[in-house]
């Protein structure tokens, strides 16, 4: 005998059709409300806080295996890594020494020229909790949120370059939209020439669009953030040019490029402070700057 087969004699509430209609209507309302008007952020925050323990619990086995793995790392490997790190430390500390004096000089010059001083570049380190399963949204969830001072709009980098931007902040976690997300645009410049361009994500990769054919760009050129916006500090590496198609008859060159940062693989990321822009000058009639980031639209 199968209990599941027992017919329900007492039919309570709405017919299935009615229920479905109700649910479908509610879903559609939510979809529109969330995508067009961003009405659901509060609810999302609340649910994500409730789910946070589960999130941490899901990470426990992985962390344990990693810890066990760390424990059994061979000494030789540790030694090698230690040596490499020490060497890098030496090189970087020499860079740093020069940097700090240069920075002081720069601040002085900026003061002399009455330019706004740039904030210091201290970032917050966060760990990637998981990547969203949704194939449409190239997003990461990190384990720092508004309680650690993260704000929406901050740039996120790893040791190699730009990963993306914080787009949604919850109390204990935050969502990072990756540069390869569709709708993601980064103002970049070609490091070699200083030519400014826009880097578009297209869902799984990035490309430079609307670059006149005559532009001086070559394969293997490095694209770094140009800093022409309030979001990214200047000079963060973003992508490397892979291939340039200059089609006769087209006004723009097709530039395929490859993201440098481990957008799909980094486990630890650094959240950079926003670049502070000087107050907008009173003349507001200036034409809209083309090099403006489009803060994602989900």
């Amino acid at each position: 005998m199968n209990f599941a087969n027992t017919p329900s004699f007492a039919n309570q509430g709405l017919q299935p059709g009615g229920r479905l209609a109700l649910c479908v209507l509610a879903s559609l309302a939510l979809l529109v409300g969330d995508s067009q008007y961003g009405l659901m952020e509060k609810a999302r925050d609340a649910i994500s806080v409730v789910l946070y323990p589960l999130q941490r619990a899901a990470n426990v086995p992985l962390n344990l295996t990693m810890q066990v793995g760390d424990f059994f790392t061979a000494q030789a490997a540790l030694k090698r890594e230690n040596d490499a790190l020490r060497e890098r430390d030496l090189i970087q500390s020499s860079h740093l020494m020069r940097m700090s004096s240069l920075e002081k000089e720069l601040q002085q010059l900026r003061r002399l020229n009455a330019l706004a001083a740039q904030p210091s570049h201290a970032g917050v380190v966060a760990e990637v909790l998981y990547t969203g399963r949704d194939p449409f949204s190239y997003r990461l969830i990190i384990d720092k949120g508004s309680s650690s001072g993260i704000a929406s709009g901050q740039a996120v980098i790893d040791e190699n370059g730009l990963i993306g931007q914080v787009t949604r902040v919850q109390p204990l976690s935050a969502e990072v939209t990756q540069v390869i997300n569709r709708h993601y645009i980064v103002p970049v410049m070609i490091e070699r020439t200083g030519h400014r361009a826009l880097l578009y994500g297209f869902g799984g990769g990035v490309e430079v669009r609307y670059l006149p054919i005559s532009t001086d760009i070559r394969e293997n050129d490095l694209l770094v953030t140009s800093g022409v916006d309030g979001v990214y500090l200047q000079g963060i590496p973003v992508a490397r040019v892979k291939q340039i198609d200059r089609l006769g008859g087209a006004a723009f060159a097709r530039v395929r490029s490859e993201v440098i940062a481990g957008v799909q693989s980094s486990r630890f990321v650094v959240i950079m402070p926003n670049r502070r822009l000087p107050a907008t000058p009173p003349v507001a009639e200036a034409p809209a700057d083309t090099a403006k980031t489009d803060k994602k639209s989900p």
Partner: protein
Amino acid sequence: MNYDRPQELLKPVKRRFITLTFVVALALELLPLPQGSNRWLPDFVALLILYWSVNQPRRIGIGMAFGIGLLADVVTTSMFGQHALAYSVGAYLILLRQQQLVMFNLGQQTLVILVLMVLMQLLMAIARWSVGASLPGLGYFLPALVGALLWPLLTKLMLLPYRSERH
């Protein structure tokens, strides 16, 4: 007649057990798995919705599917309502023919589940597309296929705690 389905006396399913299965499925979504894995990893929450609405239609119906869908929306960082829409439609289609479905053998059920999983994926794709995402390729339906293939295993697994000791 159905020969595959275990016909021994089953203990009644506890609500606690149903909740636990959903918690585990949601936790699976939250696992920091390698990036490529979500190209084939099925949507376990969807599978569970289908499973429980076939086997416990009084407990998991359209409304529950909707609510769990909302949770899944937050967990998978997708649009609000996307999973909720797909899950409630899936649950509804199951409930339409639930009394026949439980009588099917596992092979027949798997086929039905395959169709439903693909349909649910399609609904989500359309929902995303209508608010401005691009349509995905055919590879997008691979998880649905894998999920349907896992159906017999899931059924056996779920019945495990509810076999009577002696039969």
